[in-house]
């Protein structure tokens, strides 16, 4: 009997080893299949040709996220902000690549058709926001981005021909601090130049944002008698010119 056990036990061991071994292989295979993201849009030419205008198309690739570690990571970042997993339609999560920045954007639709979770990721850091999109009366649609504490930081309206208007940028400390962190991680040396640049205010396009550029330009204009006169004669045209030139303003903007 003992001999029988001695023969069977190693056999059972070998069978169990193969059985679990096969299961492990299947798991790895299935996770390998699930992990791949599916490309749903790609325009390689956009990767090379970067338009200087912010309103042009900068998205050169969109992927539909598969069930993989990447999706787990963004889910964790969203759950950390107090969201419930059941509220998110994770299967429809998309990943956006831009040609003018290394920041990756993820969008996750939610059970509420007027809300979409937006995550910006760069260098392993996440900024979680909620996009609200809904009717605003008069055939217009309103679009706003809010941080998870329900504070606006960007909003605009779209008419029936998808033209933008009433663009508003709000002071939002969370977004400012995220920008500062990323900026200091990316341009540590340049950021030292920025303080000197903004101190001398040589070029308003080097101000940190569009609104700062506008402030700088208007202040500058007040110091010039000619600019003041133009402001009296044709204020709308002058401000339109300022606004156009401040598009794309930022510490590393071309001057």
């Amino acid at each position: 009997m003992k001999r029988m056990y001695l023969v069977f036990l190693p056999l059972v061991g070998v069978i169990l080893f193969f059985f679990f071994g096969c299961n492990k292989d299947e798991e790895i295979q299935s996770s390998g299949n699930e992990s791949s993201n599916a490309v749903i849009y790609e325009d390689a030419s956009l990767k090379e040709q970067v338009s200087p205008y912010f309103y042009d198309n900068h998205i050169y690739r969109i992927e539909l996220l598969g069930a993989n570690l990447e999706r787990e990571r963004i889910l964790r970042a969203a759950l950390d902000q107090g969201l419930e997993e059941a509220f998110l339609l994770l299967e429809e999560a998309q990943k956006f690549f831009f040609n003018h920045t290394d920041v990756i954007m993820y969008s996750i639709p939610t059970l509420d058709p007027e809300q979409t979770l937006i995550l910006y990721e760069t260098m392993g850091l996440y900024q979680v926001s909620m996009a609200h999109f809904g009717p605003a009366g008069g055939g217009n649609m309103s679009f706003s981005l809010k941080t998870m504490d329900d504070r606006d930081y960007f909003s605009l309206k779209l008419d029936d021909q998808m033209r933008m208007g009433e663009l508003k940028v709000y002071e939002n400390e969370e977004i400012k601090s995220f920008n500062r962190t990323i900026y200091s991680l990316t341009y540590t040396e340049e950021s030292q130049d920025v303080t000197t640049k903004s101190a001398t205010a040589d070029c308003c396009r080097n101000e940190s944002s569009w609104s700062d550029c506008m402030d700088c330009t208007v202040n500058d204009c007040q110091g010039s008698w000619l600019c003041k006169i133009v402001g009296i004669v044709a204020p709308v045209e002058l401000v339109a010119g300022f606004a156009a030139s401040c598009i794309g303003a930022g510490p590393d903007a071309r001057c």
Partner: protein
Amino acid sequence: MSLYGKIKFWSFLVIGIICIVAGGYLYPYGPDKRPWAEFLLLIGVGQLLIFAVLFFLRYRKRNKEAANA
């Protein structure tokens, strides 16, 4: 007013606006662009002032003609 006259009259407005928008566009680009920006703004203001004077004269003449008739 002849066609040529009309074109010349409205060109003061159009060129004035174009120069001001171009000047305003160049203005925030720093001190090296500032002289060009101011030059364009000056031309723009000049054109608009000429337009304003001509506009005033044109309608004053029209009003007089209407009053005489």
